[in-house]
C-alpha cells in the first residue's frame, strides 16, 4: 500500500527530563546519514495510529520512579494497552535510558517493548541501553548502538 510511509522510520521517545529526546535526535542523525528518512515523534503526541501503518520504528524511553515509565511514556503506554491496535505490520528497535544503581534498571523500555510485542509487533536487534550511573556519554552510547543495529534492520524493511 503506502510504501512512502513504510520506508519512513518513526522515532518515538518518552522522557521525564529530556535525555531521551537527545537520544532520539542522535539516532535520527545516524539513520539520515545512512540515507533513511526519520521522523521524531514525542510520545505525548503519539497514539495507536502513529504506529499502525508504520513499517519500522525506534522506541526510546527512560525509567522513572521505581522501575516505572516516565511522564510522557505512561499515557502512551496506557492508551495502547486499552485500545490494543493490531501492530503485526510493525518492526521496531528499542533503546532504553536508565541508571544501574536502581534495582529496576531499564524497566521502562522492557515494559514498552513487551507491550508492542504483545500487540503483534516484531522487535529487531538487541535492546540498546544507556546507564546514567556510568561515565559513558549518552550521545556515544546511543550513536554506536544505532550504527550497529539500525541501518541493516531499517534497510531490510524497505
Amino acid at each position, binding site marked *: 500500500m503506502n510504501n512512502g510511509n513504510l520506508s519512513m522510520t518513526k522515532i518515538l521517545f518518552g*522522557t*521525564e*527530563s*529530556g*535525555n531521551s*529526546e*537527545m537520544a532520539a*535526535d542522535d539516532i535520527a542523525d545516524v539513520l539520515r546519514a545512512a540515507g533513511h528518512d526519520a521522523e521524531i515523534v514525542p510520545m505525548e503526541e503519539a497514539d495507536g495510529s502513529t504506529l499502525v501503518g508504520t513499517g519500522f520504528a525506534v522506541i526510546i524511553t527512560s525509567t522513572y*520512579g521505581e522501575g516505572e515509565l516516565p*511522564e510522557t511514556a505512561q499515557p502512551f503506554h496506557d492508551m495502547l494497552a486499552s485500545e490494543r491496535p493490531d501492530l503485526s505490520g510493525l518492526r521496531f528497535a528499542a533503546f532504553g535510558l536508565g541508571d544501574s*544503581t536502581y534495582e529496576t534498571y531499564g524497566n521502562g523500555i522492557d515494559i514498552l517493548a513487551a507491550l508492542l510485542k504483545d500487540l503483534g509487533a516484531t522487535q529487531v536487534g538487541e535492546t540498546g541501553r544507556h546507564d*546514567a*550511573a*556510568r*561515565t*559513558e*556519554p549518552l*550521545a*556515544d552510547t546511543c550513536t554506536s548502538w544505532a550504527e550497529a543495529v539500525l541501518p541493516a534492520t531499517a534497510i531490510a524493511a524497505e
Partner: protein
Amino acid sequence: MNMQATAPKDTLLPWRDPSFRADPYPWYDRLRAEAPVYLDPLTGGYIVSRYRDVVQYGKHPALTMKAPEGTPKGPWSWFKDSVITIDPPAHTALRRKANKWFTPKATAEYAKQSAAEVHRIIDDLGPEGVTEAYENLALIPGHYAMCTALGVGREGYRTGAAYMRDCMIALGSDVSAEEQERAYTAFRFLRDRVSHHLAEARRNPQPGMLASWIEQTAAGDMTETQLYEGLFLFWATATPNAAYVTTGGLELFARQPEYFELWKSRPEMRAVILAELVRLHTAEMSFDRFVAEDLEIEGVAIPKGAHIRFLVASANRDTEVFEDPHAFRIDRPEGTPAHLSFGVGAHICPGQAIALAQATAILDAVAERATALELAGDPVYGHDDRSARYLRLPLRVIR
C-alpha cells in the same frame, strides 16, 4: 548486631577550621577509611562519606526532606511547599511543572544568550584582555540563560548572587549566629527581588516558565506558595553553582592549555571534559535528609528522626571508585561510575541541563575568540563547609 558509630574525642570533621574548609579532602580520606558512617559529635547528625553508600542510601525511601517536630528553625525554614521541602509522590508532580522547561534541548537554546554576553564582554576587553572571569564570563552570562528560560528581566542579579552566598553559608554544618543573621538579611533582599519579577511578569508576561506557571496558578493547578517558592529556587539559588563549574573550566584551560586545545579540536570530547569538571567542582559538597524509618548503613544503626548528611564531595574522590581522584583525567577506564555532584534520587538537580548548557555555550564562545587563556593573578576561592565556590578568577583572554 549493630555497631555503635564512633565518636572520637577529636572530631574527624572540624567544620570551621580554615584549613579544613580550604581543602577538606585529607579529612574525608580518613573519614571514609575509619568511620564511613560517622556520628558527628558537633552536630549530632550522621555523616555518610563513601561513594557506594551515598549512591545507594542517598535515594533510600526511608529518608525524607521533612524535618521532625522540634528541629530548630533556620533562615531556610520559610520554604513551605516546594521541591526542597516535600517527598514523592507530591514531589514528582511539582518537579513535572519544571521538567519541559529545563531539558537539554531547551536549555541549549537559552544558553545562546550566555554566548552572546560572552562575545560582548570579549568585544569590550581592554588592551591587556584582563577580566574577572567568575562574574563576567560565567555568572552573569549564565544568568541570562536562566532569565530566558523563566521569561524575566535581567536586572538585580549581581547583588542577588552575592546575597545568595550568604544564604548558602547557612546550609552548612556549623553556622554561627552572625552567619544566620546575614542569611536572614540576604533572604529579605532576594525575596523582594522575586516579588518584583513576579509582579512584572503578571503585568507584562514574557514567553517562558514563569508566565506558564502564573497561568497554572490562576487555573488552580499550582498554589501561590508553589509559584513563589519555585520561582525563588530557579531565579535566585543555583546559577552561581553552574558558574563555579564554568569557572573551573576556564581555570583548567588556563593552567593546562592542552585541554583548551582539546575542547576546540574535539567537540565530541566536550561531554567527558565537562563531566570530569563537574566531578571535581562539587559546588554543593553535601546534601542532607531526615530519617523517617530506622535504617542501617555499613552496620551502623541510624534511628528514626536522625539527620544524615551525604558527603558528595567525598564520594566523588573515593579511591575505591576513582583512581588518582584529585587529578583531572579524561582517560578513566570504561565503566567508571559517574560523579554524584548533582545528587541522587528524586531530588537530583533539575538544573543539570541548564548548568551544562551554560558551561558549554560559554566555553565554546571563549574558545571561538581566544587563542589562549592565562591566569592574570591568583584565583580566590571562598569555600565553606558545604559550598565549593569561586569568588574571583582573574583571567587574561589572549586574542
